[in-house]
């Protein structure tokens, strides 16, 4: 590093320091605002949530500028001499800055959310101590779980009373366990993230010194596994402690969260080899002596699109070796080598076509089909494994349907609806918790896909027909393959872009989205969800419409940002 480059690196460090100071200043100002907001709304966490969302966007924006500016400094470094080691030193500093900014924000966000729940606690206690009386005779009801709904038979008149917790109690117990647990465990996540950063910096330094970049060793990856497990165990223990549960619940939550880590590891050759598996590239390699073999496998020579569908499906499944093996068999291949030979046969035959516009179009279509196929396979696997089995006798479809209707019903009418499905409020809450739990632990997306279809099929709200049409299209052909019925168009594309832009603006301004939708567009969040599903599904037919949506919504975002 020559003197001129030292100067540039010093300037870069100065730039990052100033950016850190800007972020710190922002957080300092925001801290006072959060304190006041909590004091004004001790029983309602929504205002704080809206404010934090807006502040986060400003912090992330300030943090992003570091990465955006690196290029111009790199140009100056290169103009002053060799790019390395200055460039890796700057990247190292940027990585440190990004980590600091990320941690500063996470700590800030978690701290104030926890403060909100602390402020809520005295009101929650009060709410739980409130006496409940029978609606028919006024006799006192003895509550046993005041933080949950329960059905209590009146000792005097025998009427079954469904007693629900007060809004503040339900709000507290609904969200507090997650935020308290996240707060308790966050430092452990930071340790893992820093460990990954150190590895990246080591690789940069290797490159700068003209050495081969260090790869992860199995010892490193095992360390990462231990760190990740430690983090999720801490989170799960805290969460189960706050919301109630057993050690088995801790283990099941930890396992579910670790699945994401193992998916990532199963793409690392070092990890795969330690598990006795072939490397990702290795298993798809055609042995030299079979290089010229022509084999179409389970496909016909004209089924090029299907070949790419298989390719995308199998690539995605690599992160789960057992699923990958099962998928190979299901699609009609003997093993990974057989599949590699078939793919090579197709690409060799259609090489010239694949680089044409039509060839590219075919690949895009294959990607869409693969996305739908993946969803169908995940649902089939979910059905086979019991993931989609009913909870207390209530299927996912019924749960989603009832929930879609809830948004537009008065509480008394909702109790009637539940009764038609042989549920009281307490059972409904258990079923709801069960499905949310399954959804959050499912890494295949099967529960979310089925839920979303059933929710939209309910056709609720003023744009219910649009949501139902999108659900029909999904069911029949899949996303992007079949468009929803044009007659169901809820509102114009331009209006959809305007609403999207307005929502982006409100989230930057700390404004409540539901209030804005009601005030400006006379619609609910459920209405927008239906509209959005319709247009997303329709836009898949014409990928250029995504660009138009982005331009239009940016224009509207500016308009709404300018509004008081």
């Amino acid at each position: 590093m020559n003197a001129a480059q030292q100067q540039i690196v010093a300037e870069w460090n100065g730039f990052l320091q100033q950016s850190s100071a800007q972020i710190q200043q922002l957080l300092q100002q925001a801290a006072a605002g959060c304190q006041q907001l909590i004091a004004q709304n001790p029983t309602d966490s929504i205002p704080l949530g809206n404010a934090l969302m807006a502040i986060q966007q400003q912090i992330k924006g300030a943090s992003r500028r570091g990465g955006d500016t690196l290029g111009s400094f790199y140009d100056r470094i290169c103009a002053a001499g060799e790019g390395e080691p200055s460039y890796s030193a700057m990247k190292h500093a940027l990585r440190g800055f990004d980590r600091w900014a990320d941690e500063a924000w996470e700590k800030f966000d978690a701290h104030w959310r926890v403060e909100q729940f602390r402020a809520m606690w005295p009101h929650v206690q009060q709410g739980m101590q409130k006496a409940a009386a029978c609606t028919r005779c006024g006799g006192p009801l003895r509550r046993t779980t005041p933080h949950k709904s329960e059905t209590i038979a009146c000792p005097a008149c025998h009427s079954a009373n469904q007693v629900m917790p007060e809004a503040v109690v339900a709000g507290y117990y609904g969200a507090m366990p997650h935020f308290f647990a996240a707060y308790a465990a966050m430092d452990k996540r930071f340790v893992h993230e820093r460990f990954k950063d150190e590895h990246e910096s080591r690789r940069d330094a290797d490159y700068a010194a003209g050495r081969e970049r260090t790869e992860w060793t199995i010892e490193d990856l095992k360390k990462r596994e231990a760190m990740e497990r430690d983090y999720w165990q801490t989170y799960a223990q805290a969460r189960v402690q706050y919301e109630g549960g057993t050690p088995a619940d801790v283990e099941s939550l930890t396992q579910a969260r670790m699945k994401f880590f193992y998916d990532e590891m199963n793409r690392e050759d070092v990890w795969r080899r330690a598990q006795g598996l072939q490397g990702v590239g290795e298993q798809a390699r055609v042995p030299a002596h079979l290089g010229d073999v022509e084999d179409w496998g389970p496909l016909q020579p004209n089924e090029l699109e299907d070949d790419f569908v298989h390719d995308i499906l199998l690539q995605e499944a690599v992160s789960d070796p057992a699923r990958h093996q099962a998928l190979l068999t299901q699609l009609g291949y003997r093993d990974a080598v057989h599949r590699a030979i078939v793919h090579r046969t197709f690409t060799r035959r259609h090489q010239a076509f694949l680089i044409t516009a039509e060839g590219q179009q075919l690949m895009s279509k294959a990607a869409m089909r693969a996305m739908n196929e993946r969803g169908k396979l995940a649902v089939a696997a979910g059905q086979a494994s019991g993931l989609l089995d009913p909870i207390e006798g209530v299927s996912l479809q019924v749960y989603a349907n009832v929930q879609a209707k809830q948004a537009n019903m008065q509480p008394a009418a909702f109790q009637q609806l539940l009764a038609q499905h042989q549920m009281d409020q307490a059972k409904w809450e258990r079923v709801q918790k069960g499905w949310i739990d399954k959804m959050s632990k499912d890494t295949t997306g099967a529960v979310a896909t089925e839920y979303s279809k059933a929710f939209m099929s309910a056709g609720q709200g003023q744009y219910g027909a649009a949501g139902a049409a999108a659900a029909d299209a999904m069911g029949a052909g899949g996303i992007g393959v079949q468009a929803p019925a044009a007659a169901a168009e809820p509102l114009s594309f331009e209006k959809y872009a305007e609403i999207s832009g307005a929502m982006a603006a409100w989230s930057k301004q700390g404004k409540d989205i539901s209030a804005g939708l009601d005030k400006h567009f006379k619609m609910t969040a459920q209405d927008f969800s239906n509209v959005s599903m319709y247009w997303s599904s329709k836009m898949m037919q014409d990928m250029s419409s995504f660009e138009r949506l982005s331009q239009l919504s940016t224009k509207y975002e500016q308009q709404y940002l300018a509004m008081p």
Partner: protein
Amino acid sequence: MASPDLAALATSLSQHVAAIRQAAGASPAGGGPAWDALLRHYGVTQVGADERAMVVQYLHLTRGAAPGELRMVMEAAVQWARREVERLVQGAPPSLEVARFVAYLDGLVDAESAQYEQFLGLTPPPPLSPHPAPPPMPAGPSIASIFQNAQQTSKEVPWAGMQYKQVATLTCVHCGGPQEQPSDFMCRYCRRPIAGSLKPNI
């Protein structure tokens, strides 16, 4: 008047800075055993022998540790001080004196590095271009307006101020009889579905 903890931290930091400055200045050109021990103490990895030799040669050093290493140690000391501040503040809104101390920390590494280089007789190179100030913060809404909006609009949601009964009893839509057995949705008086019908759950 600074809080006792913050004052103690400031004193401790100035002792660290003085010790680093002294060890760097007393070191043979490029560094020596005492300097290496200090680097280890602060958890700083020393630059390679080749780079040290290059620094001595190109910067014509006759004494003192490499300026780059001094900067790294100062950064480590500042990092430590920042963590201590964080521990003291514990997420509470920082006071003015904490903010001042943090601002002092922000400039400490540059100031100490410049002073040390002056001590070594190094002339700072003229800047290649004007020092690029960080671009202004993106023109987003002000923090004050964010909190004002959050407070105001949360009262504009359609369900604001709605009160719900906390206790409800199902009555039969056919005969008006109350539900008496939890989880029994057939009316025990008229023997018909209490909510009018029974729907499948699968």
